């Protein structure tokens, strides 16, 4: 009906402008022309997500309050598992190691990763080659990377060789068997593997900084540091948020590298919650106790993820204002 009105030149004049702008009534009042897929297409995904994520997590949360060993009977024992965790110095130490590795990795990878990103961001002719090379460790399996570093840290390895070369032979040690240094060795391994990942996040962020603004700031007499502080950092805030959030979540779960480098030793000096969950639940068959450790790890991850979300949301708003 409206179509005829629009085409009738004499009648169009009488139609007020706002009425003329109404969309053509293609689907108006009728059944939708197209049905987009069938509802049951989503069913396998819904079942798997509920089963693997929700049901499993809830069951695990319940196990945490039992003394189940995986076979036979079990009892509900309340908070006993948690009391045991916080009374055992090795387990408490593993909580500290988990936090140390997570925060250590995040801080160091972000500093070096941002440094690399800034260094190869613009003007360099070989920046794509450099980006490809520096990202390389990210795609390798953490286990394989750990074996390379195990070689570097052994007593006859390149690290001790380097110390002799620069005239510091007294600093030589068996790095992975030294209770103070073994956790630093793991930190170095993890940092080496993950820095490229952080760098790529920052490169994506830096690509969104308009050259004109930086040039304008430079013309106004801002030096490199001032430009970085007032132009670059505000622009890459979302990247900082992503890099640190993912880094903390990943860092709290570090498992492969520890298993390959030290197996948790020497004398539990490099145990983390992740390695303890594996040992208690799957090596010792203490499913209830292992679940309690997993619950502690989960709560730590959730707490930091939430803090991180709030912190970055605030800064985002400030950045936009």
């Amino acid at each position: 009906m409206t179509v005829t009105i629009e085409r009738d030149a004499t009648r169009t004049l009488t139609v007020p402008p706002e009425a003329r702008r109404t969309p053509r009534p293609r689907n108006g009042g009728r059944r939708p022309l197209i049905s987009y897929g069938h509802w049951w297409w989503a069913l396998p995904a819904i079942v798997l997500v509920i089963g693997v994520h929700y049901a499993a997590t809830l069951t695990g949360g319940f196990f945490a309050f039992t003394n189940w060993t995986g076979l036979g009977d079990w009892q509900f024992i309340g908070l006993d598992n948690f009391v045991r965790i916080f009374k055992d110095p090795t387990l408490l130490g593993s909580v500290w190691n988990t936090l140390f590795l997570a925060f250590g990795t995040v801080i160091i990878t972000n500093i070096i990763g941002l440094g690399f990103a800034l260094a190869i961001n613009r003007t360099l002719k070989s920046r794509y080659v450099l980006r490809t090379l520096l990202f390389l460790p990210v795609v390798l399996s953490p286990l394989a990377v750990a074996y390379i570093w195990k070689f570097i840290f052994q007593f006859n390895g390149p690290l001790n060789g380097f110390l002799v070369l620069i005239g510091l032979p007294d600093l030589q040690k068996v790095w992975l068997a030294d209770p103070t240094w073994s956790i630093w060795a793991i930190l170095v391994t993890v940092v080496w593997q993950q820095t490229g990942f952080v760098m790529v996040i920052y490169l994506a962020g830096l690509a969104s900084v308009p050259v004109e603004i930086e040039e304008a700031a430079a013309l106004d007499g801002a030096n490199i540091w001032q430009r970085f502080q007032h132009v670059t950092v505000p622009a890459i805030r979302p990247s900082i948020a992503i890099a640190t959030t993912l880094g903390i979540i990943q860092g709290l779960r570090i498992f492969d590298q520890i298993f390959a480098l030290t197996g948790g030793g020497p004398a539990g000096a490099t145990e983390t919650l992740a390695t303890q969950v594996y040992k208690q639940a799957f090596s010792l068959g203490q499913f209830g106790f292992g679940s309690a450790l997993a619950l502690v790890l989960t709560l730590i991850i959730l707490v930091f993820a939430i803090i991180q979300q709030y912190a970055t949301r605030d800064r985002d708003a400030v950045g936009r204002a």
Partner: protein
Amino acid sequence: MFRYTKLTAVREAFIWLVTLIWLLPFYFLIATAFKGDQEALTTSAVTPPKSLDFNAFIQVLTATGRNNIPLSILNSIIITAGAILGLVLFGSLAAYVITRRTRTWTNLTFYLVLIAIILPAQLGTVPLYIGARSVGLTGNAVGMILLWIGILLPLSVFLYASFFRGLTTEYEEAAVIDGASPTQAFFRVVLPLMAPATGTVAILAGLIVWNDFFNSLIFLGGSTTQTLPVAMYTYVGGLVSAWNKIFAVVIISMVPILLFYMFAQKKFIQGFAGGLKG
């Protein structure tokens, strides 16, 4: 303003130097793997091999029993391919329905998926293992594939959903007007248009599944179906300071993923940056 000057050239040379030092571990890896047994023990890591000795590689590739590396590569390929196939199929179907149909339940499903991405997986591992064990899904590829599809589906649905939101409905409408059923419209028209999303899902999921050690160790532990990282762990555990052999295993384990990386490195890096931004 920011032109390529002499200073930039100096800077470029310096950054190359830093990069080469950063990548030094790869040199140790390659140099040692090509040394003979005696040479690997006696020479320093910095010395290049006198001549290329392939014995370490031959020994690693012909080891039998639980150290069968070629078999573990095959297992890894089967599990990774199966998981990617399932993630692409189920993830795209679910995301399509969720984004294209606007009902209450589709919104709820989207939040269900979104929360599952944030939900840490550790706590579910023990119950999943017990559940899988009781129905015979531990120690075989089928169980592992199902487990991975379940674990990574939220990521897949989320990535597909953000791509579908950006895709106009005109193509499907045209297909349906031309007489295609919803199924035909999806598989013949929509899914081919989704190649970039499928690439991102395949790269992210493929990398996670291929490199995983923790889940394979638990769900395949003690069985003859081993993935590459678990086989490498078992094999290396049996060698003492035979670094040429250890590094031969490490290099063999890296070759497939490195080939893939070199072939698709641009997509790889974009997939990472794009997938994260969602």
